[in-house]
């Protein structure tokens, strides 16, 4: 069953901004990345799913329940991007209030609160007032809130924005832990490396529209490149299925080439072609594209298709 499902979900403000026509399905037990630059509509999408914003079009479901209903939020946890909690409460009191709202049985509350405090690395500091918390501590207590009710789906909106490198790693580990527990984590982020390191599936969102979605590994294969070092310094006859090539430096009688391929799976065919042409190959190294390049590739592709459509 899809944990999150939207069909042409739209939330615009007087026809502008927000998100448009977002259709996606998120399965169970995965970390799903919602990747896009600041202001691309990521938070608007999550806030619409959680009923904080009223959609202007389309429909959405969480665990089969229509968004906006209280039932759709029963098995949900959320860490907002702008995490603000009542600063007159202590961390523990905040969790107790949320436990009450989530209807966690009174007898289980203390144990569950202790568990989540431990999980987010706040043990020993939970009795302090939130007003005295650093941003990082507030974000950690927000994470504890998000997972307090043992939800099936957890929305994390830029969950590491206030954390130091150790904190970021902790959060990544937590996401993996939750996924291993069978939970679905919906991660909003503009940090490509964050998404890359934990996400199974990804949507790339730009200016309120999804420009690409699918398995992260597949999206990464935008333009396969391979670096080849051949013997000699003369010209080499490359096979016709190679999109383009560029000659690099010459060193110790060897030449370095950068080849642009349609598909990374063409590499063995290239080697076969070169060996048939009596070209000695010293080194073959697939080049992993820069994350920024992948992102821009999909954004540009969307722009190009929009341009063609408009014509």
């Amino acid at each position, binding site marked *: 069953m899809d944990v999150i499902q939207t069909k042409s979900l739209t939330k615009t403000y007087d026809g502008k901004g927000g998100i448009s026509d977002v259709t996606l399905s998120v399965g169970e037990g995965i970390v799903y990345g919602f990747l896009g630059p600041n202001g691309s509509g990521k938070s608007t999408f999550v*806030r619409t799913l*959680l*009923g*904080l*914003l*009223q959609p202007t079009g389309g429909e959405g479901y969480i665990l089969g329940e229509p968004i906006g209903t*209280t*039932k759709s*939020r*029963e098995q*949900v946890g*959320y860490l*907002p991007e*702008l*995490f*603000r*909690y*009542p600063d*007159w409460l202590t961390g523990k009191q905040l969790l107790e*209030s*949320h436990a*009450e*709202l*989530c*209807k966690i049985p009174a007898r289980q509350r203390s144990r569950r609160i202790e568990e989540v405090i431990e999980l987010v690395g706040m043990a020993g500091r939970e009795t302090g007032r939130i007003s005295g918390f650093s941003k990082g501590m507030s974000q950690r207590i*927000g994470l504890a*809130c998000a997972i307090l009710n043992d939800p099936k789906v957890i929305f994390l909106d830029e969950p590491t924005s206030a954390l130091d490198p150790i904190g970021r790693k902790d959060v990544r580990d937590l996401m993996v832990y939750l996924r291993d527990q069978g939970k679905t984590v919906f991660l909003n982020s503009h940090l490509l490396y964050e998404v890359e390191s934990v996400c199974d599936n990804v949507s790339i969102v730009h200016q309120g529209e999804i420009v690409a979605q699918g398995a992260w590994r597949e999206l990464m294969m935008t333009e396969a490149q391979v670096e080849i070092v051949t013997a000699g310094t003369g010209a080499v006859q490359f096979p016709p299925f190679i999109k383009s090539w560029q000659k690099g430096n010459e060193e110790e009688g060897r030449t370095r080439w950068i080849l642009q391929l349609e598909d990374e799976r063409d590499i063995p065919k290239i080697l076969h072609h070169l060996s048939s042409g009596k070209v000695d190959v010293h080194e073959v190294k697939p080049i992993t594209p820069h994350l920024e390049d992948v992102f821009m590739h999909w954004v540009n592709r969307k722009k190009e298709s929009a341009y063609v459509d408009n014509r």
Partner: protein
Amino acid sequence: MWTIGKLTVKEMISKRIFLITIIMTLIFLALYGTAIYFAGKEGAEAGDGGQGTEAFLMQQFVASQLLGVGLYFSSFITALLAIMSSVSAISGEVSSHQIDTWLMRPISRSQFVLGKFLGLAFLLIAYAISLFFSIIFLHQGIGAEWMALDIEPFQMIKAVSVFAIQPFVLVAFGVLLSTRMTTLNAGIVAIILYGAAFIGGFIEQFGAVVEKTSLVNIGIVMSLVFPIDSMYRKMTILLFDSADNPLSIAQGGMFTSISTPGNIMVWYAVLYGAAAVVFSIYSFKNRDV
């Protein structure tokens, strides 16, 4: 709903302004008690030589005026506190984004609004009732025999019930405004309406003294727009109008009532507050936060 209500009460109590309000209230009560003590003492000394109806009327007039002043000021500070605490009830949470994590829980918007309203109304009504009885007890106790008025317990209960309608209406109205406006705008609207009701009340009383129907009608219209001052006037009628006393001391002056609101006005005020709560729920139901 109850969780939100409890949190609202806790939040109010935890704020420094609450502590300041309590301290200032105690200072006000101390000052009032001191004034009543000396007024009672000097009144008794000055009244030793006076006898008969004239002296009795003077005693009743002064005593009812001083009690009226105390209650009027109590009504005023309760109103200000009710306005200041309720106009940010929703808008403050929205602007700070604190509301996000509450509303994403499996509670409805109406439960949230009701919780906020109930928490604030409970606290403000409790404050109003405490202040009412503090003033009555100071007046009747410290003012001693000369200052004491003939007020039956049942009169007090009826009067305090009407007195408590004021914070009920103000909190309901403040919460309604806060579902649609920023805290500042809501505060300005509520204060202006309260001021208009306050002025309208005086115009109505003055109109009754000079027997000008148009002035009385202005006051009545203002009472319909914002039924706050009329509740204060009604309270004084219930408190001072002794059935045993043929000389109704309710006809006492600007801090008591000359033009008397009817019982229907009490029901109107209660319905007004209830309608404001219903509109708050409706107003907030589909609002983006």
